[in-house]
């Protein structure tokens, strides 16, 4: 199974979103916050190679010397951003390329270095296993999370008929 970087990210954020996205039921298009992220991506690292593709599985934001870079709007989901970047480093290492990662939040003027050590490697493998299990199973039921408020999938998840049936 080929898992994309965004799917690793979703795995850390919401299993239901991961499952839906994997089956082509995604709502990223036309969502303002997703658009904002795209604009940020286009304006970041003007002079670097952008959107480096690893075997059609993962598209990295940019590669800068010994670093793979990933840029995000806010650090609210830092654990997921970190897993996504670790996954890129893992994919590169599998192909014999050793790099480190830089996770940037330009709005917060914050950049974190990410290194794929043994523990982190285990973490990626464990997550991959988790992703596999989610995708093989049924759609995880909706339950409200803090992140739902800004999620592009929110109206889909919360659509339905409330109140008593007439």
């Amino acid at each position: 199974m080929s898992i994309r970087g965004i799917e690793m990210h979703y795995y850390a954020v919401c299993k239901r979103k991961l499952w839906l996205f994997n089956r082509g039921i995604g709502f990223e298009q036309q969502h303002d916050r997703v658009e904002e992220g795209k604009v940020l991506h286009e304006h970041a690292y003007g002079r670097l190679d952008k959107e480096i593709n690893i075997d059609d599985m993962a598209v990295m934001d940019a590669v800068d010397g010994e670093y793979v870079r990933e840029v995000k709007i806010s650090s609210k989901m830092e654990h997921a951003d970190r897993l996504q970047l670790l996954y890129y480093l893992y994919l590169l290492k599998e192909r014999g390329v050793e790099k480190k990662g830089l996770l940037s939040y330009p709005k917060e003027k914050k950049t974190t270095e990410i290194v794929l050590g043994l523990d982190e490697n285990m973490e990626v493998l464990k997550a991959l296993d988790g992703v596999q299990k989610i995708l093989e199973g049924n759609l995880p039921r909706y339950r409200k999370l803090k992140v739902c408020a800004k999620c592009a999938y929110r109206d889909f998840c919360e659509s339905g008929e409330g109140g008593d049936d007439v």
Partner: protein
Amino acid sequence: MSSGRDVFIFSAGKLHRKHNTLYFTDEEGKSRPLPVEQTENLHLFGNVDFNTSLLHILTQHDVRLHVYNHYGYYDGTYYPRNSRVSGYTVVRQSEHYLDLSKRLVLAKAFVQGGVHHMIRNLRKAGEDTKAHIDTINARVVLLDNANSIPAVMGVEGQCRQVYYDAFTLLVKSNFTWVSRSRRPPQDPLNALISFGNGMMYTTVISELYKTMLDPAISYLHEPSSKRFSLSLDIAEIFKPLVIDPLIFSLVNNRRIQSKHFEDTDGMVYLNEEGRKIFLAAFDEKMKSTFKHRKLNRNVTYRYLIRLEAYKLIKHVIGDETYKPFKAWW
């Protein structure tokens, strides 16, 4: 969230692209720009020239182009390439068509939603319609035992017949009303209903297009009957919710009168002036909002249709059983 608008073009002329802007030039040579970025649907009622560079700019901005014939009936749509494809959803949609018991659940739900809004319209008209409401209520329970699509269609037809019988009580004007006539409509009221239902149909198509549903796989209507038959299914719920009250209001307030129709050998159609009045009112209605009980925020009637599509996806992928929208106020 996208909040695009609908742009209607009635006059003959030319649509063209200049740099990255879209212009409409009428027959007198007067040119005006169209806000392509805020446009979601372009409806052409007049005879309009355009070329492929127009289609390119429409694709870039994800704008659909709907074409209507001389009588204002829907001919077809230019769809920009659609990236919202989910093979998984289409397979599950098909499963709910192929399995009769699953198909019946959805077909009945669409009828129930529609009939709920028919009764709602009758109830709002006062005491006179009580007998009609009772009859419809007696008919609609027959849905429970209907075990074939023709049987469901039969119940729907009976309810609709009673509903249309009550139209003389709902319309206060000098328009005569005998019965529903289509292809062609034989009187002004029928012309309004046909035109309005056609607009609802294209509106549902536009919203379905923004989802992963395949508009050709339907449940109440046979998929072979029309290209986008799922749109017909979903329109069943919204025609009596949106179109009929709109017609009653336009006619009862004398905003639409006999002079807004053309009669050609017994075929009656809305003229340009009449279409403009209707479409302005329709557009206003679709843009108006109400508080959604589940989302707990205001949504437009147009967006309500998208939410209906979402519910249908949730149903076919085994997430949440579909319940048709039923206005509760």
